[in-house]
């Protein structure tokens, strides 16, 4: 479904992605793990056209966003990216719109859906994330976990083929983390195609069909969770990661 080939990206001469190739297949949940600074966010942002790659190819359903470093025209870029949804670490809801409007705005101005239809769909999605009673609240009135669930519903409203999450819970307290994780877990049961960058190792092991382990801008281990988590390099990382959690 999504195919990335040999992605190269540097920031101010500092290489961050050094030849990444990966695929995301229909109905699959891919967890992307790795040390801080290994380039996980940059990769996900490149796939969603939030950063421009220096070289490489990204295509979805055979439609290229960028081919060998050459980007498609702006209109095609938007069309390709509409197949992707993206959930930010810090939600980025629109603070001046109530929850319902947050969910309907892009449905209406991008997909051209009618108001009633957009609102009906928005309410269904709010129900799915357990927030049907918050339709008229403003983001500033919600807890972080609630905001993140709204953000997930907002992304779903565009009917993306692949939903991407960049550390969706790292801005949240442990209790709030659980409510967001259970929404993502429910989506994985529906066989939604997802890519999740996460530091929640237990969660990655549980929901992911495939785990991608990154180190210094390259993928060093990839495969079924049981295999990847038994890779010695990954074990070293997880050991460290547990220590990090202790310090945090």
């Amino acid at each position: 479904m999504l195919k990335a080939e040999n992605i190269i990206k540097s920031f101010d001469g500092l290489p961050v992605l050094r030849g990444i190739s990966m695929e995301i297949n229909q109905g699959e949940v891919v967890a992307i793990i790795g040390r801080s600074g290994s380039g996980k966010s940059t990769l996900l942002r490149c796939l969603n056209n939030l950063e421009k790659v220096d070289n490489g190819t990204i295509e979805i359903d055979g439609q290229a966003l960028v081919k060998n470093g050459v980007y498609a025209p702006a209109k095609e870029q938007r069309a390709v990216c509409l197949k992707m949804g993206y959930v930010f670490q810090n939600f980025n809801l629109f603070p001046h719109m109530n929850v319902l409007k947050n969910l309907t705005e892009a449905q209406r101005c991008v997909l051209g859906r009618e108001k009633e239809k957009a609102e009906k769909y928005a309410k269904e999605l709010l129900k799915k994330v357990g927030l049907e009673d918050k339709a008229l609240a403003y983001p500033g009135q919600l807890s972080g976990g609630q905001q993140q669930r709204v953000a997930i519903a907002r992304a779903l409203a565009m009917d993306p083929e692949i939903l991407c999450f960049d550390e969706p819970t790292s801005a949240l307290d442990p209790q709030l983390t659980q409510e967001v994780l259970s929404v993502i877990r429910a989506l994985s049961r529906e066989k939604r195609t997802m890519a999740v960058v996460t530091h929640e190792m237990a969660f990655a092991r549980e929901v992911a069909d495939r785990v991608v382990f990154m180190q210094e801008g390259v993928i060093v281990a990839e495969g079924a969770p049981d295999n990847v988590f038994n890779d010695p390099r990954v074990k070293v990382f997880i050991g460290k990661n547990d220590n990090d959690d202790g310090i945090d």
Partner: protein
Amino acid sequence: MVMKFFNNPEKLWNLVKILLEGLSVTGQIFILTLVFSIPLGMLVAVGRMSKKWIVRGPVSAYIYIMRGTPLMLQVMFIYFLLPRILPFKFDRFPAAIFAFTINYAAYFAEIFRGGIQGIPKGQWEAGQVLGMKKSQTFFRVLLPQVCKRVLLPVTNEVITLVKDTALASTIAVTELMSLAKKQVSSSSSIEPYVIAMVMYLIFNGVTEQLCRLAERKLNYYQ
């Protein structure tokens, strides 16, 4: 002090009528300046933030000149000196509007730039990942938030403008200040100034209330 108007209701009423005409010209300068300078200020702000130095450079220079020289000088420059350089001449009133507009646009531009740059980058990105075009994100996501952020500094400028309109008197536009001056010299009494002052205060009071109303309207979130 010799009273010439305040002890004579008929003369006072005549004076008030004359000054009210001036006030209406003042009001026109005020409104036209806002109508032109706010959109122009937005354009200038966008130019000032351009990635291309060929755009950003001249726009920065323009803002620097507008904010770095007295408005009174700019008004006179446009009315008296510009006709010697350019092949056309402004009438007094349009010259004043033009001068105020380009001056206030520079101040508004800096306020808008601050407002736009103060919005987290994530708002642009959220619009983008939802498939919105840049222009859609700007008008639907950024602009409403910018309006709220800039309301206070804009209110300050608007109130300053009420008083700055008096500078049109330097090129003899018949607004409130020049009519009051004329009445003072022809009557050798300062009473017209007192009335003009009261009129400016009332004008400002109304303006301030309108701005407060806008503030309350924009208080629906956060």
